[in-house]
């Protein structure tokens, strides 16, 4: 049963959004948010990714060895969808890690919300924003001897 990648794509967005919503509201239910955003939803997206790759990798154009080949790879809708699922799964997992780390280090949730928005939209940029925030708080802890 061949599935239309454009149809599958329509399911991935709302699924990821659910995870991000859980992270944004995580102070209300930290464990449920962690379960959804660090486990269930990334796992579902990873299953979709793995299945897509198992089926479509063998006859996909291009490869990893040059930028042109990577671009060629993404001309195949099913492989591009797999790549998209990869982004969504890993960005969400990083978002969950940010949320968990912030909770463990008592970083106020309000401060990480912009980092989460950035991670949601532009993955690594949000990761970097959180690193910068965390670095400054670590510096404070080092200089004052207090825990962040």
């Amino acid at each position, binding site marked *: 049963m061949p599935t239309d990648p454009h149809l599958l794509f329509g399911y991935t967005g709302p699924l990821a959004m659910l995870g991000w919503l859980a992270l944004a509201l995580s102070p209300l239910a930290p464990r449920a948010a962690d379960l959804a955003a660090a486990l269930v939803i990334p796992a579902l997206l990873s299953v979709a990714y793995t299945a897509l790759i198992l089926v479509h990798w063998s006859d996909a154009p291009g490869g990893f060895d040059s930028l042109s080949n990577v671009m060629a790879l993404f001309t195949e809708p099913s492989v591009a969808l797999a790549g998209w699922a990869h982004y969504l799964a890993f960005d969400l997992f990083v978002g969950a890690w940010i949320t968990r780390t912030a909770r463990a280090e008592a970083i106020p949730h309000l401060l990480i919300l912009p980092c989460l928005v950035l991670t949601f939209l532009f993955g690594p*940029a949000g990761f*970097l*924003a959180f690193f*910068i*925030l965390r*670095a*400054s*708080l670590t*510096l*404070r802890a080092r*200089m*004052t001897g*207090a825990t962040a």
Partner: protein
Amino acid sequence: MTLSLATPAAPFPDLRRLWTDAPALTTLTVVLILALIPLYGAMALDARVFQGDSPWLKPIKFHYALAIYAGSLAFFARYMPTGTRAGRPWRWFTASVVFAILAECVWLSGAAMLNTASHFNTDIPFLTAVYQVMGAFAVLLTSASLVMGISIWRNRDGALSPALRQGVALGLILTFALTIPVAGYLSASDGHFVGDSTRQMWLMGWSRDAGDLRVAHFLATHALHFVPLAALLAARLFPAQALRLVWLSAAVFAALVIGTFAQALQGRPFLPFIG
């Protein structure tokens, strides 16, 4: 070493206190500086040119300027009365100032992404509207120096000698009092040049053949550095006259700002001989 700060009477200020006296402003300072790393990355990759320079030059300049401003406020916070500093009104006020500074940075980098003007943008209606909001935020963030200056002015805990306290307070208040009219006029103009500018000064980028309103803005903002440093020098070198010298240096500095402002308004460059 002609002027040592590390005497027993006046030990070098403990920088660790930045984190306890002004945690939000200090964190902001470090964040602004670290955020320069991706900004320089963008500048290295971006081949586009905006008004003769990389579009990223402006956000980078503002990150430095705002980091210095926030860091300076965080430092001077120790001279406020402890009760004020620890109180809820001040903490909320500081939080709003931090938010305003971050909003300015997002706005400036957003304009750089679009390779368009942040200030004086009339091409994109949305950015024209945002410019108004950012003007209000700029007043808010500058008002932090006024509030802090008044608070230190009225502080009688004796942590600083009267001359130094007056210098710090006057510098902070002058930063607000001079910056608001200069920057207000600047923002109501069509641009920062008066006349056609073809050459610019190294590093600062000020015009060498036209009036440049940014000179007075720059100096006005740094009153909070100049007057306290003058007070420090006066207290060391002429302790008996220190208080009077503080007032004198504040007056001289205000005159310098007004002078450079008038010079720019007449379309004359500030230091045309410096390449």
